[in-house]
């Protein structure tokens, strides 16, 4: 028993976090709000690919790192912490194990009707009845949607979109189920990262902001709001890591563990967003402060890849069959 990242896992996570600290500051997230379709930062994506982030789950023989979810999940946390706008969960966690390495930007409708970064994607992984297919974005009718978080750059399939020419990927229910669980767990990891980022930013802010002659962070009510966030995170992150282990080993508790991770990550991130905004006050309620980038991503992801009710019911079904 060793419930901690290995030195390798930690080094990989830290390397990605270092890259993102440089290449994905809030300004880069803002850039993704404004960039025209197709203009999502490819250089950063290339760096992530170069580090192997996008092919962690691809066998070495196929040009990947041949590692498992316990390596990728901590990295996805780091991506959440930077509010990385790219569809890294969709590409690295969901598509890569099915489609292989070097697949560019891939998005999918497995997590919900609004495909993130659909306006930038090189390939689409789509559900078609019980099957998964790979489609060329140019060949499928996509309708952009206006999202609160504009860095989602989302679109949805036009009603009656024609997938007859799409390339079959799998019709194996176990593979489809695993893809769904990978998406949910990857998103849970991103949410943990977002929550951590909102907590860190707020802690820094309330230490510095003074009202009534003292730091706002010295008020007991503010302390308790933020202690509650720390409390949730302290008990959510292990659930996410444990689910990565379960998924990597394909243990029989997979549905239970992944859904518990997503349900708890949803709750922790929602709590973090609420506390962060409230403790920032009016400054947080502007688009000039960076906080809103994290808030809006959180509100989108808590309801993508299954909301809290969905995953809680799935845990209930696993526990009380």
């Amino acid at each position: 028993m060793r419930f901690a990242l290995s030195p390798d896992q930690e080094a990989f996570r830290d390397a990605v976090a270092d890259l993102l600290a440089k290449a994905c500051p809030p300004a880069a997230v803002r850039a993704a709000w404004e960039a025209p379709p197709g203009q999502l930062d490819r250089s950063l994506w290339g760096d992530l690919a170069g580090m192997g982030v996008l092919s962690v789950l691809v066998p070495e023989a196929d040009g990947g790192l041949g590692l498992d979810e316990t390596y990728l999940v901590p990295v996805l946390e780091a991506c959440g912490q930077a509010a990385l706008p790219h569809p890294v969960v969709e590409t690295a966690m969901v598509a890569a194990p099915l489609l292989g390495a070097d697949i560019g930007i891939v998005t999918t409708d497995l997590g919900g009707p609004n495909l993130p970064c659909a306006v930038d994607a090189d390939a689409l992984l789509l559900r078609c009845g019980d099957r998964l297919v790979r489609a060329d974005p140019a060949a499928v009718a996509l309708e952009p949607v206006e999202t609160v978080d504009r860095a989602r750059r989302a679109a949805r399939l036009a009603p009656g979109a024609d997938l007859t020419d799409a390339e079959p990927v799998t019709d194996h229910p176990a593979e489809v189920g695993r893809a769904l669980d990978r998406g949910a767990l990857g998103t849970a990891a991103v949410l943990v990262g977002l929550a951590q980022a909102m907590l860190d930013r707020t802690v820094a802010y309330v230490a510095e902001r003074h009202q009534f002659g003292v730091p706002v962070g010295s008020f007991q009510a503010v302390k308790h709001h933020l202690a509650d966030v720390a409390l949730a995170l302290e008990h959510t992150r292990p659930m996410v890591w444990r689910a990565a282990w379960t998924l990597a080993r394909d243990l029989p508790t997979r549905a239970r563990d992944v859904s518990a991770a997503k349900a708890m990550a949803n709750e922790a991130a929602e709590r973090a967003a609420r506390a962060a905004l409230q403790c920032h006050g009016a400054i947080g309620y502007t688009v000039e402060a960076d906080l809103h980038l994290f808030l809006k991503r959180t509100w989108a992801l808590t309801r993508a890849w299954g909301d809290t009710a969905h995953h809680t019911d799935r845990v209930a079904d696993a526990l009380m069959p």
Partner: protein
Amino acid sequence: MDLTWSPQEEAFRAEARTWLEANLAEWRAACGGAPASGDTREGFAQHLEWERRLFEGRWAAVSWPEEHGGRGASLWEWLIFEEEYYRAGAPPRVTQNGIFLLAPSIFEFGTAAQQAGILRRMAAAEDLWCQGWSEPDAGSDLASVRSTARRVDGGWVLDGQKTWTTRGAFCTHLFGLFRSDPDSERHRGLTYLLVPLDAPGVTVRGFGRLDGDEGFAEVFFDDAFLADDAVPGGVVLGEPGQGWKVAMATTGSERGLTLRSPGRFLATAERLLALAARAGDPTLRRRAATAWMHADAYQQQTLATVTRLAAGARPGAEASLTKLWWSELDVELHRLALDLLGPDAELDGPWSKGWQFALSGPIYAGTNEIQRNIAAERVLGLPR
């Protein structure tokens, strides 16, 4: 105890309902069907048309005396009007900061000349008033205001900065607190001033609120000259140096009844029920019933409050409880709406806009943390 409306009140309700239905339809048609948000430049102009229509129908400020453009309605009728207003789906009032926050102070502290010169133009949406309380270092801690007003011949010279001024970029006038005694501290030595935003030395910069609209502004005062007669009846409300007292009366209104009437939340709750009825999830259904109860409780509590006010009581610290209730109710209603929408909650639309707006409730007009302190200290009498 009598929980029925009088025939006169029912007639008032019917009149309001009829007028609102007809005029909303006309206004919407004039806007090409779907008016933009009142917190955008385009939408603000459309909403001014609506405000002028309200004024012409004498619905802009129903509780004001007729001479100032109201219809001398009772508090009960005001409540009824608000209920009908939101039930009809009428838009948020872009004039609200003047009509609901400044006007009560003008009625209480203004001279006859100020009342005559300011109120009717406010109701008619000719003068558009924004609030100038907050400064970069004075948010919840209003008494730490640093903007100054220096007395000079024939007027005041203003310096400093206000911020988070709702719809400031679209307004014509600002009301706010300025430190007129440079040696003063905290809530002493402040003066409540009425400032045309076109005064020389005043600069307004709009900026984006959480929901992306340009709903906020910063207002800079650089040796700005405010002539004594820049506003009819004079630019000082109350006495110089007594600004805190006047402001407290206004923030009392902000927290209390006049800012957020129950009608608005009941209307939201009704829309939520329609959403939940379609959803079929038993937990969400139960949460919708609970949210509706909380909206209904706000209505019932308001009826009890208005009964006391109608009998001559002054609004007290209970206003803190009211502010806590409606602001957290609004968050509850919209969070549930997003949960009902599921993955489509992220789409830009009325519910996601409403959610973002609701999140401002626990922050502005004194954060809910401060309201809880006030409730504990002044309603329950706990030690400071």
